[in-house]
């Protein structure tokens, strides 16, 4: 697409941490043309933010700064010392933006780049218009009111001009953040995770706005995200993992390359989870391990290593459309050798669960008309559902929809304004201590005791749930072995890699073999492989009779649940199995809707409904 705007050659970035040097980016080279739009995809910690900051000149590449040499002087040297930059040969050649180097020509680069950091960089206590005026002044622009109005109109914020940025919804903040970066008409737009905390509807709107910009003004865009399904909408994708660029190209062609390896399979009358587990185990044994196997509605979706393995597979199967995700997991796996997939091979961990007395009708969690009102704001509005033993039940919805409130009411952390709930037939308001004793709870962001070691964390949770002596030692050893935490026994929980944090949090939650497990956003930020492993663990638990309640905002993960409840603006829009949900929005234009399509459709239906009722 015309001239080259960004050129990156062998970019490496190293940080100094407590444990020594850490390479955040390793030998990255890429180019981006004028007016090109690209997604930068990768899990948390893959180097996305570092890369964007390097482009914006907020960080300097290793080749441009002799990092160690200059950092040795410490505080005093920082103040009084002269900076001694040893210019290596390729100084200022690593990153070139329109032939300017961010290290030396920062001012020129600033004229080209519009950068929106995570959390959008807005002043929450300034109003929309004040934020815009500020950023206009900061960029030495003399925008007149009319220009700013045009911009606001363009983003659909014109009616909220005087509202404080802090009071905007996630979607509106995102648009305002974009407006602030657009105020001086940059040639390159760097957006750092613009879709975090934003509902899918707003996400799509923003995407449209950005697409329009690209077309009209020939602006190049780099949009970083950790959602693979989001990246699929782009023409071009950079996939980063652990600081390395693993893929650069169109997601469609990547998915194409997986053609013939992806299948849907099912076996009537058999429990899908058990089936999946057996398939994974058997194929592993045969030396033909699967790349990926997940449950998707009524089917099992399988990704094979090669055509040959696929042909030999024993179950009837239908070829499915490959996705970018399949490609990513294939790439990652081929680097990691093989996925074990045999997490459930040791059942001792999860048995005994079903011994706990069975409540009437096997209903382990019951919520009836749960309502929570904070002042004028209704956080949760008459939410009801019943969950059976061994079921995986998902609460799905964007941030702030009321998932967490519902969740907290269920485990007795928030007292409902009206309605009631019961765990294993024990009503929360009657005997909270007994009801809670059935719970395993994994809080948001893997709340662990950060400065306690892995072992100490496990020790604590085991002790608090009444385990002691030999029993405790045995249980902890089992968990450590099972979750492969041995190498990190004495590491502080806060220093663990995210995937291991998640494992530890889960093992702490199940240390006392609870019949009911509550998981609050257990997969956010975690890389794909860890997520897969996590789900296979969850599957085993559910197979052994543990009831699982999970909240998530990953639309695709909702498919792994037996049933989901869509929560939006405090209300449960629908409670159904994932396939039912998707089918309910099937149209001729969209015969194979994704979870996100279903979600958006249902939300807009709901919005229309409220509008109609208002008109009346």
């Amino acid at each position, binding site marked *: 697409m015309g001239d080259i705007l960004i050129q990156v050659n062998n970019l490496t970035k190293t940080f100094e941490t407590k444990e020594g040097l850490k390479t955040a980016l390793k030998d990255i080279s890429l180019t981006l043309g004028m007016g090109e739009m690209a997604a930068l995809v990768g899990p948390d910690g893959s180097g996305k933010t570092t890369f964007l900051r390097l482009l914006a000149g907020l960080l300097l590449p290793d080749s441009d700064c002799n990092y160690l040499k200059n950092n040795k002087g410490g505080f005093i040297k920082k103040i009084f010392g002269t900076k001694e930059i040893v210019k290596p040969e390729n100084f200022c050649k690593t990153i070139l933006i329109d032939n300017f180097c961010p290290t030396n020509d920062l001012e020129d680069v600033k004229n080209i780049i519009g950068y929106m950091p995570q959390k959008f960089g807005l002043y929450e206590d300034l109003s929309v218009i004040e934020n815009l005026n500020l950023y206009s002044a900061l960029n030495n622009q003399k925008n007149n009111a009319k220009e700013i109005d045009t911009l606001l109109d363009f983003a659909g914020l014109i009616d909220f001009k005087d509202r404080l940025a802090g009071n905007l919804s996630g979607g509106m903040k995102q648009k305002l953040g974009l407006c602030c970066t657009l105020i001086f008409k940059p040639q390159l737009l760097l957006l750092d995770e613009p879709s975090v905390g934003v509902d899918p509807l707003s996400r799509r709107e923003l995407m449209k706005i950005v697409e329009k910009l690209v077309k009209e003004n020939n602006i190049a865009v780099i949009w970083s995200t950790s959602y693979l399904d989001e990246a699929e909408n782009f023409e071009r994708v950079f996939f980063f993992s652990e600081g390395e660029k693993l893929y650069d190209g169109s997601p469609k062609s990547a998915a194409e390359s997986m053609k013939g390896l992806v299948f849907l399979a099912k076996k009537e009358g058999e429990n899908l989870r058990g089936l999946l587990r057996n398939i994974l185990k058997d194929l592993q044994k045969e030396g033909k391990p699967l790349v990926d196997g997940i449950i998707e509605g009524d089917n099992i979706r399988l990704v094979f290593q090669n055509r040959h393995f696929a042909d030999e597979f024993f179950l009837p199967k239908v070829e499915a459309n490959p996705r970018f995700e399949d490609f990513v997991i294939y790439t990652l796996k081929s680097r990691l050798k093989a996925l074990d997939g045999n997490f459930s091979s040791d059942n001792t961990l999860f048995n005994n669960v079903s011994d706990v007395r069975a409540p009437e009708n096997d209903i382990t969690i019951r919520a009836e008309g749960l309502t929570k009102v904070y002042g004028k704001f209704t956080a949760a509005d008459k939410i009801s559902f019943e969950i059976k033993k061994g079921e995986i039940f998902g609460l799905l919805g964007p941030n702030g929809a009321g998932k967490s409130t519902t969740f907290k009411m269920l485990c007795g*952390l928030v*007292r409902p304004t009206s309605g009631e709930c019961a765990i294993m037939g024990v009503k929360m308001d009657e005997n*909270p201590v007994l009801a809670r004793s059935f719970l395993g709870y994994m809080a948001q962001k893997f*709340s662990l005791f950060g400065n306690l070691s892995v072992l100490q964390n496990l020790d*604590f949770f085991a002790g*608090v*749930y*009444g385990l*002691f002596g030999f029993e405790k030692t045995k249980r902890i050893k089992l968990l450590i072995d099972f979750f492969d935490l041995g190498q990190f026994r004495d590491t502080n929980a806060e220093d663990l890699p995210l995937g291991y944090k998640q494992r530890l949090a889960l093992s702490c939650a199940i240390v006392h073999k609870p019949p009911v497990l509550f998981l609050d956003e257990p997969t956010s930020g975690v890389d794909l492989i860890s997520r897969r492993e996590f789900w296979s663990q969850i599957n085993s638990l559910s197979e052994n009779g543990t009831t699982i309640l999970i909240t998530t905002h990953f639309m695709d993960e909702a498919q792994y649940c037996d049933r989901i409840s869509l929560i939006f603006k405090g209300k449960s829009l629908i409670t159904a199995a994932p396939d039912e949900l998707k089918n309910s929005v099937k149209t001729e234009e969209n015969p194979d809707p994704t979870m996100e399509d279903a979600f958006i459709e249902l939300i807009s239906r709901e919005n229309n409904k409220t509008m109609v009722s208002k008109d009346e």
Partner: protein
Amino acid sequence: MLNNIKIRFARLFALIIKEFYSVWRDPKSRSLLFLPPIMQLFLFSHAATLDIENIEIAVLNEDSTPISREFLNCVSSSKYFKKITYVNNLKELKDNLDREKVRGALYIKNDFTKNYQKKKGAEIEVILDGRHTNGSQIIGNYLSEIALNFSAENPNGIASVNPNLAKPLKGGDIQIRTRNWYNPNLYYHWFIISSLVGILSMSMVVLLSALSLAREKESGTFDELLVSPLKPSEILFGKLVIPLFFGVIDGIIILLAAKYAFSMPFEGNIFLYFFALIIFLMSVVGIGLFISSLCKTQQQAMLGVFVFMFPAMILSGYSAPVENITPQFLQNLTIINPLRFFLVISKGIILKNINFCDVMLNLIPIIFITIFTLLTANFSFKRRLE
């Protein structure tokens, strides 16, 4: 039954271990434990003094006679005064005082010797800097004392006239013999250090307990505690024991420093002392937990701790005696300040060896405060649960 007890014990034990580690393994909390108290002990014991020494004064002597000079000699040889600046006129005197070059001035008028010898009552004006009220009063007292001694020793002011009368009658005067019990030399640091045991361990304990709860709230682990089978009272117990433990250790360190570094006496019963210290620190933990139950972040908790600490210190009788606090209601307010009572106990046991009843008299209000704050903290845990 036995198993139940074992389980409860295991739970509490796990909790206490966790509380200990989360303080000990956290560099920030650990940095609070010992270094600041020791530094403050050092700073306070050296800097905090209301004694006044090394005084510089100005003298305007219009009456240059042997007697006035003799008197001035007495002044300058006293241990309190370091330097005498002679000035020639009132303007110069004012200048010196204005600029705080001197803390006071002696103004001897030209009829001084005449009056003195005629026994008409010789006057010396002592001009003191009213900007430093406490110090100036003390300087005034020093000078009065010197004058008194001088006139007793030189009743006729004729030392040079009749050498035989240089040591005349020592009588005619009522003698006042002062003895200072409990602190014979009136060392100010004895007072400071015996108060510091309470103040320093309090400031550490209140911060520790407020932060530990606020941190758990911030990181979300508090929810996990609440969801666990631990009862609110058990959580409270865990939060109580560890700050208490470190508070007592700080107390021991300060007492050891008092004994060995500052050669202070310890008159009373050490067991009674620690009993009182523990009760007092319990009330402080209660306050810390109460503060953080009102806060969402560690930052707010820290501000809250400050808002509590400052008045608690000022209204404790440490900076200035409680009975000096003038608006009566503010003085009455001090009865909710556990530090006020503990300072009495601390000084009482360390320096005065007060008896059990007197200790209890001051301990009972602390016990009430402890019960109140701990119940409040317990209630706030419960409320969060329901």
